[in-house]
């Protein structure tokens, strides 16, 4: 009797040892988690397998190469700001916006020349006004001097505005230049083998 019970216990124990993993697998299969769901979404490194990793690595190397050239060739916003501060339009011309730069320089020269002309005219009339001893001349010269002075002031305002606009817009022009440079470099060096030598840069296609 005892033997029968012992055999029964052994059998039950063996059954449990064999059946437990099977049952556990079934249980796990019921709550199975799909592979993509355990990957971070969005994927931080933009690759899911070795091929994609290699491709991403290649892209990164390309970007690093382009970045090193970009860092050398990009323009400084501060330098272009200072250029525009000295001569309106100079910053734009440096940033390859030749037409806008030339228009700004032209307008500035025109307004400065006109302002000087009206200032000179105003000074002349004002000097005559100060020395006049005729009521008619006093009235006429003052009106003429004041009109010329207001023209000078208006041109001065236009000149300051153009100058300020040029200085502020040089930031935008430099940003656009740097963006275009980055895009051009990205396209230019895509797939190209880059060799950096002292004082020289070689590209092999």
């Amino acid at each position, binding site marked *: 009797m005892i033997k029968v019970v012992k055999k029964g216990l052994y059998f039950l124990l063996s059954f449990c040892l064999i059946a437990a993993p099977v049952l556990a697998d079934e249980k796990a299969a019921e709550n199975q988690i799909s592979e993509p769901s355990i990957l971070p979404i969005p994927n931080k490194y933009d690759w899911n397998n070795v091929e994609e990793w290699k491709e991403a690595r290649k892209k990164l190397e390309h970007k690093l190469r382009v970045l090193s050239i970009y860092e050398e060739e990009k323009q400084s916003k501060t330098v272009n700001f200072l250029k525009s501060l000295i001569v309106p339009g100079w910053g734009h011309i440096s940033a390859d916006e030749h037409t806008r730069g030339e228009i700004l320089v032209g307008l500035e020269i025109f307004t400065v020349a006109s302002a000087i002309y009206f200032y000179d005219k*105003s000074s002349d009339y*004002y000097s005559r*006004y*100060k*020395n*006049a*001893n*005729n*009521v*008619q001349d*006093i*009235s006429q010269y*003052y009106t003429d*001097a*004041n009109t010329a*002075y*207001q023209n000078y*002031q*208006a041109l*001065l*305002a*236009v000149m*300051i*505005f153009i100058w*300020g*606009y040029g200085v502020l817009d040089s930031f935008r022009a430099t940003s656009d230049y740097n963006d275009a440079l980055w895009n051009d470099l990205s396209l230019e060096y895509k797939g190209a083998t880059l060799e950096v030598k002292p004082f020289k840069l070689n590209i092999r296609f």
Partner: protein
Amino acid sequence: MKKLYIAIFVILLIIVLSCSLDRTNPLDPEVNPSIYSPPRVDSLWVYFNNFKLTWVKPYYQAQDTTIYADGYFIWGARSWNTKFDLIGNNVGADNTIIDVEEFYIERNYLVFRVSSYLVYPPNDTLEGYNSKAVTFQN
């Protein structure tokens, strides 16, 4: 950004256009209350028969005082469109007649006009508006 630029430009224009030159001439009646404008000579005639240029003594009322001229400048020209030259100076408000025969015969002056003046110490003379130009009539 465009609105900002426009706003800055408008503010600049307002600031600069609100400025004007100072009236610094000490004889400017517009800013100096002690300076009166000389009275304007309105009525004047010159006759061929006696070569006399005459005008009505001008004056005007300013606050509590009546302003008379301290004298008159007489200007002559050879035609209506040529430059006027100073040909005489009649000192005194009542000195409203001048003989122009000599100017007509010797220097060919045909057209005349008169402006009054006021003298301000020490030596400043403020000349008033010119009268209309006249020529000989019979």
